[in-house]
């Protein structure tokens, strides 16, 4: 396993009190695979993603747990070690490449900055590598001289990918890399990402709220809800035969051009306020299949070798799936 988190718990101090954005998460990212991390806004996926690279918001901190990268726990290895390894082992493609490039420096110079200052290359070698990287992501080398505002949205995203790959990382975290782009460009970027992943053999953690992105490009998917991991497994299994009611609801809520006219069924209600989360299963208030047992929080358990979920009614998954495909199930 390239990266695994053990009981990772991350808290925030806000003006309205403390809350835990991520609670007891055991995420596993294998080598050479694209893992999707999916959930609605506020479920903690970005917090989790940023914790893996160790650069979080000022009022966030890791309360407990481990982040084991190639066997070594980053959390207990100290800030200096983590900072030193940053970008070399794990890189990050930000949500909106629009603003992630410094507007007053040329794009090429920002690439060189990483290559020279962190990669230890001399200028000539760095320039060649920069051109290589641009070629890799499909941008003409002469664009290295341009400023960020001269790039189109799609190009900026590609530049961000090039930056992320600069030091040959083993894991790249892509936080909503295509959300801000139009559909056609989305496809292109995702194709580029997929292609690069296969060529370089890296792992990718793709954080998104869009299931169709997951379906298109991921090998595995992890579903998060209200700070907890609720289901995880191969993408075909989780999307095709979801075990957790929330996953089932997600499938219903997304358009799928493959199937003939289907009504989109939203999951009614809203995620709980994490300042004061429910004691039992966090999805229980919205779950159509809730029973008494749900007042106790369920643990993540294996459905089979590659598939895990956290639901007391895991065993009845097939029957529940049938009910879940009915519109009436989701209406109160």
């Amino acid at each position, binding site marked *: 396993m390239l990266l695994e988190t053990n009981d990772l718990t991350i808290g925030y101090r*806000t*003006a309205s009190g403390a809350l835990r954005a991520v609670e007891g998460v055991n995420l596993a990212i294998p080598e050479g695979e694209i893992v999707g991390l999916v959930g609605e806004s506020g479920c903690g996926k970005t917090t989790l993603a940023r914790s893996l690279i160790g650069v979080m918001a*000022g*009022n966030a901190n890791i309360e407990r747990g481990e982040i084991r990268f190639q066997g070594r726990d980053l959390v207990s290895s100290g800030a200096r070690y983590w900072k030193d390894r940053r970008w070399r082992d794990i890189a990050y493609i930000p949500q909106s490449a629009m603003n992630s490039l410094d507007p007053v420096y040329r794009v090429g110079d920002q690439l060189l900055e990483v290559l020279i200052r962190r990669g230890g290359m001399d200028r000539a070698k760095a320039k060649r590598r920069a051109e290589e990287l641009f070629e890799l992501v499909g941008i003409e080398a002469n664009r290295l001289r341009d400023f960020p505002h001269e790039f189109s949205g799609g190009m900026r995203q590609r530049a961000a990918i090039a930056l992320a790959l600069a030091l040959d990382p083993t894991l790249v975290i892509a936080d909503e890399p295509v959300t801000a782009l139009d559909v056609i460009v989305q496809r292109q970027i995702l194709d580029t990402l997929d292609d690069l992943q296969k060529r370089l053999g890296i792992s990718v953690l793709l954080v998104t709220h869009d299931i169709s992105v997951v379906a298109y490009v991921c090998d595995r998917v992890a579903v998060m809800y209200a700070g907890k991991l609720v289901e995880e497994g191969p993408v075909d299994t989780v999307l095709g035969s979801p075990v957790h009611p929330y996953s089932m609801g997600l499938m219903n809520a997304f358009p799928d051009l493959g199937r003939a006219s289907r009504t989109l069924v939203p999951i009614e209600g809203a995620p709980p306020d994490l300042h004061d989360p429910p004691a039992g299963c966090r999805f229980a208030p919205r779950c159509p299949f809730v029973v008494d047992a749900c007042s106790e929080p369920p643990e993540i358990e294996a459905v089979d070798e590659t598939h895990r979920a956290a639901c007391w009614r895991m065993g009845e998954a097939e029957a529940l799936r049938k009910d879940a495909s009915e519109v009436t199930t989701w209406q109160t």
Partner: protein
Amino acid sequence: MPEQTVRIRPSRRQAFLRSLRELGRVLISDRYAFTGALVYVAFIVVAALAGVLAPHDPTEILFTPDGMLAGDLPPSAEHPLGTTSLGRDIYSQLLYGTRSALLVGLVAAFFVVAIGTLVGLVAGYMGGIVDTILMRITDIAFGIPFLPFVIVLSAFLEPSIWNVVLAMSLILWRDTGRVIRSQVLTVKHRAFIEAARVSGSSTARILFVHIAPNVLPISLLYGSIAVGWAILTEASISFLGFGATDQISWGYMLQDAYLSQALSRGAWHWFVPPGLAIVVIVVAGFFISRGYEDILFPKLKD
């Protein structure tokens, strides 16, 4: 209880008054603005009651019981801040000084803000040639150095506190004008203005009901700072010798002290208090402006 019919479409006057009331509420709700407002009230009270509070006439030359000039006396029970070289009571001068300060401050600030807001509204909303002309005029106003201009005006006009008011009215509306125009341009293109226009609201109505509430906080913000500008300018002008000679202002006191060698004699009681008074009232203005600033740019708590 029978339901009261709610007027959905407020009249221009109602909407305008409502936004004024909102702005007035800032003075009570915001901690800083409230403190500033309190200080202002205190100064206004002092100005109004100066005649009663001051032990002496500020211009009266005083003599000691044995007929000597009561000049350059250190602070005492009789003269809490001592006397000037000419034998005038400094404390009384300080109290009476609030009058010209407030007069100049409030009147000048009013004109500065009124003209600036008007220019900004008209230029921003009308656009086109009107906007261009008004902006060129604003450019010219920005091209005139303010203090030198007041000085030059003083060459031609009789010394009076109104010179400062005139000069500020002619020139210092420029900041307010530009910023308000900027704000109007931003607001103008928002959807609800389009909706109002399409549904046939008159220009005046749109201005008063929709645009004004977005713009008035800026006016008041600049207004509260402009009072400080006016008082500082008046002080500078008086210090330079171009100020009114009939009224005792703080600037006049400072000039008097300077010319009477109060600095070399270490007569702190003479030249420190007037400056402090200016500092206090200007800071009060800053505090009030902070209240309006928080409406315009609410600080996100993190």
